[in-house]
């Protein structure tokens, strides 16, 4: 092959290569163009979709914004509703108070039988009496109208007339009138032979009241067997609660499970009515009181708290824990003195302090030696150290008592101070007259109640023993018994010396002074002069004269020492700080209808 041929071949090859390359490039470019076009088309479509989506998004955003707005509105509505519910609940919670107690209704809520503190406490909330004692009374004799609007008495104090309040309705729709008063007292007296342990029997209604007369629809008269200046005290106590004849047969009314009305014969004319009373095996489980819409004084806004629920705890330490845990709004009876003082330092609770009227005293069995001699009794009384007991056992929450009548009350004296405190000189001198000395000591048994019926009995007894034995001429043997055995021992008169206690039935010296010779104490002490003085005090309304007579009784008691006063208690209640309206006065009454949430 020549050079030309070679050149042509090369050129052809180059042409082929170039053309092939060009064609390839062109094809590729075309292909790319096609893809690009498709892409552009897709892109255009996407842009279009995106535009549409953006438009949708805007719509959605708008919708979301609208929904959020609605949601916010709903949330605001919901919050408002919740706030309303909370406010309603808060208001409702302020209408209910939960009270914890270690108390218990002893037997019944029939005023013809009930004779215990808690039974009377419940009766006070749900029943009505003709008169009552003003809250915060310092003497217990500030009587105010209740179901009676006024009263007067004859000059001989044997005829007492009461004008009854009009318009007081029983829940049954019956209007309260004089026949109800007459029926209530006639029934109480009629049941005395069948219920010798009842309050009317204990207070001697049959001995005091000769008859009750309904003078008119709203006038009632009590004719008494003897002049009785403290009669208003009797009328104000729960044994005088007005009963509803429809539910009050001339027979004792007992607890009926599941039927509150059938469990009590009283007329529900008090601030509350008994809506639930659950009791198992003579122990209360729950008592619920609800505001009585028929309460005659409801227009005054009472009761301030609409529902009172009582819960029952086995002992004071469990009750204290319930208070601290906030399980109960209020604890009343019995938080121990130590716990009460401790809780007083707790900012989450409020401790209310008040006057007490519960007293304890030392009794001597006088039918046999050694206490058949007044000098022996006085010797032991002189050796007592009341202050040490009040300080050590009750942490100064009780006060030494030197008269059977508590301080603040008419007729209170300091008569027993004459014997001194731990006055061992007097003790030794008196006993020396009878041949007792450090080698020949007086010995006797000192009994105390051991099942918690009285507060801190064992601790008290130990200190009494120590103080008496510190005289050096007396040996004391401590003995104890549970409440049932203790009172049986008292009745069978086997105890040399024994500590006993007294809650007043009505706050009047008349209900204390007789303790010096009370037959049921079985001390075998009697003194006609003291009884005559007591009767004279009953027969006068002259307060100065009455105070003089009770002082005379006290002075004679110091010489005889049949019963020796020991101490008078204080009262306290524990509540949440928001609770107000607690009155702890000398009556020992807890008026739940005056309590409110502050």
């Amino acid at each position, binding site marked *: 092959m020549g050079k030309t041929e070679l050149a042509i071949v090369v050129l052809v090859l180059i042409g082929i290569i170039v053309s092939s390359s060009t064609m390839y490039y062109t094809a590729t470019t075309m292909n790319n163009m096609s893809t690009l076009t498709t892409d552009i088309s897709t892109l255009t479509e996407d842009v279009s979709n995106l535009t549409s989506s953006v438009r949708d998004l805007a719509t959605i955003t708008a919708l979301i914004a609208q929904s959020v707005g609605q949601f916010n509105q709903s949330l605001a509505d919901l919050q408002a509703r919740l706030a309303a519910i909370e406010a309603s609940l808060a208001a409702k919670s302020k209408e*209910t108070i939960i009270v914890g107690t270690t108390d218990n209704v002893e037997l019944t809520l029939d005023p013809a039988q009930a004779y215990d503190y808690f039974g009377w406490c419940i009766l006070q909330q749900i029943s009505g009496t003709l008169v009552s004692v003003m809250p915060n009374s310092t003497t217990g004799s500030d009587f105010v109208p209740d179901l009676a609007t006024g009263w007067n008495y004859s000059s001989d104090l044997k005829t007492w007339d009461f004008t009854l309040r009009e318009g007081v309705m029983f829940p049954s729709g019956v209007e309260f009138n004089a026949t109800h008063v007459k029926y209530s007292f006639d029934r109480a007296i009629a049941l005395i032979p069948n219920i010798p342990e009842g309050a009317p029997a204990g207070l001697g209604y049959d001995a005091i009241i000769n008859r009750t007369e309904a003078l008119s629809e709203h006038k009632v008269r009590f004719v008494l067997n003897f002049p009785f200046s403290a009669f208003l005290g009797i009328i104000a106590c729960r044994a005088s609660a007005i009963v509803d004849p429809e539910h009050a047969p001339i027979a004792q009314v007992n607890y009926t499970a599941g039927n509150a009305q059938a469990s009590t014969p009283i007329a529900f004319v008090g601030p509350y009515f008994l809506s639930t009373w659950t009791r198992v095996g*003579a122990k209360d489980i729950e008592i619920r009181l609800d505001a009585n819409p028929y309460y005659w004084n409801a227009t005054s806004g009472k009761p301030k708290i609409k529902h009172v629920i009582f819960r029952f705890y*086995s002992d004071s330490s*469990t009750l204290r*824990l319930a208070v601290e845990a906030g399980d109960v709004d209020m604890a009343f009876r019995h938080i121990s003195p130590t716990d009460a003082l401790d809780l007083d330092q707790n900012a989450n609770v409020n401790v209310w302090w008040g006057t007490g009227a519960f007293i304890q005293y030392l009794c001597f069995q006088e039918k046999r030696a050694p206490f058949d001699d007044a000098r022996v009794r006085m010797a032991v009384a002189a050796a007592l150290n009341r202050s040490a007991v009040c300080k050590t056992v009750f942490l100064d929450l009780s006060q030494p008592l030197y008269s059977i009548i508590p301080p603040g009350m008419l007729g209170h004296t300091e008569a027993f101070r004459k014997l001194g405190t731990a006055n061992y000189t007097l003790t030794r001198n008196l006993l020396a007259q009878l041949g007792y000395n450090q080698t020949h000591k007086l010995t006797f048994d000192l009994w105390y109640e051991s*099942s918690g019926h009285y507060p801190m009995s064992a601790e008290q007894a130990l200190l009494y023993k120590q103080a008496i034995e510190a005289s050096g001429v007396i040996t004391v043997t401590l003995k104890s018994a549970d409440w049932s055995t203790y009172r049986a021992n008292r009745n069978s008169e086997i105890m040399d010396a024994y500590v006993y206690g007294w809650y007043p039935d009505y706050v009047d010296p008349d209900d204390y002074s007789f303790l010096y010779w009370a037959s049921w104490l079985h001390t075998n002490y009697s003194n006609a002069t003291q009884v005559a003085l007591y009767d004279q005090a009953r027969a006068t309304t002259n307060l100065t004269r009455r105070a003089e007579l009770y002082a005379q009784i006290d002075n004679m008691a110091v010489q005889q020492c049949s019963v020796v006063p020991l101490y008078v208690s204080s009262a306290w209640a524990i509540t949440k700080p928001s609770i107000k309206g607690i009155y702890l006065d000398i009556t020992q009454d807890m008026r739940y209808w005056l309590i409110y949430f502050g």
Partner: protein
Amino acid sequence: MGLRSYVITRILLTIPTLLLLLTMVFLVMRVLPGDPVALHFEKKADPWQVESMRRQLGLDKPLLTQYAEYVFGLIDVNYFLAHGYPNLGKSMSNFDEVGGQIFSVFPATLELAIYSMIIASVTGILLGVAASKSYNSVLDQLIRGLGTVTYAVPVFFLGIVFQLIFGVYLHWLPTSLRIHPSVPPPATVTGLFTVDSILQGNVIAFFESVKALLLPSLTLGIVLSGIFVRLTRTNMLETLRLDFVTAAKARGLSEDTVTYGYALRNAFLPVLTMMGLQFAALLGGAVLTEKTFSWPGLGGYILDRISSRDYTAIQGAVTMFGLVVALVSLVVDLLYAYFDPRIRL
């Protein structure tokens, strides 16, 4: 002897046991010093009133008549059907039916006993098995120590500690009572609050009654679990060494199957007996736990009736307790026969 014959024999044997118990209770209550009727009156009671009460309680009748009335009253089916509880006489304090009083407080005790026993047995058995499986290890020593401590700790002390922690400081649980004071209890159907609240669809009452149950049943359950830990551990250790356990392992069965399916079933028998005894004792009322938690059960009732010298109520409660123990013993014996066929031989 087949299972049926064993059951019949065992039930028949319960009858003379109960009769002996009833006779002893009846006689002891009557030979105690002091006149229970005279003790009832505090201040002044005329002799005719004392006599009237004695008549009302049937105590004026000859001893044999009283005994016959007591026994026949107890098995009076018509009375039982009419009242829903046996005739245990009338309370001396308020003449209420003692049977009614006891059956009112019994559900509280039963509920506490059931939950406590569940906690005690589950905890005790599981820990006992775990200890036996890791014999002489640190875990074993720890569990043994725990068992001893829980058994030794006084129930009232543990209860107060729980009350302080969970009630007073944390405010998680109520310190006492069967339901929080602010919540009304459910209406009585069975008397068991947890069951009654479910039956009535009362969710709040259910949760509150469970919350109230937690502290007392945990306290009692933990204290009781100690004895189950030790008993289960000891019996498991013995059982795990027996040939049939080795054989089961040799057959390639899993460890859990061998432990729980074979060994525990055999080791369980003494634990079951103890469970029966403890449960019967709990049904008589866990006095300290009930007192600590103000739990209104049978223990507190008996204590209260004793302090009130309510002899008829005490007699009824002791009889009831005897019946419960006899019944639980019977059930335990039957379960024993079920778990261990050798018993029936």
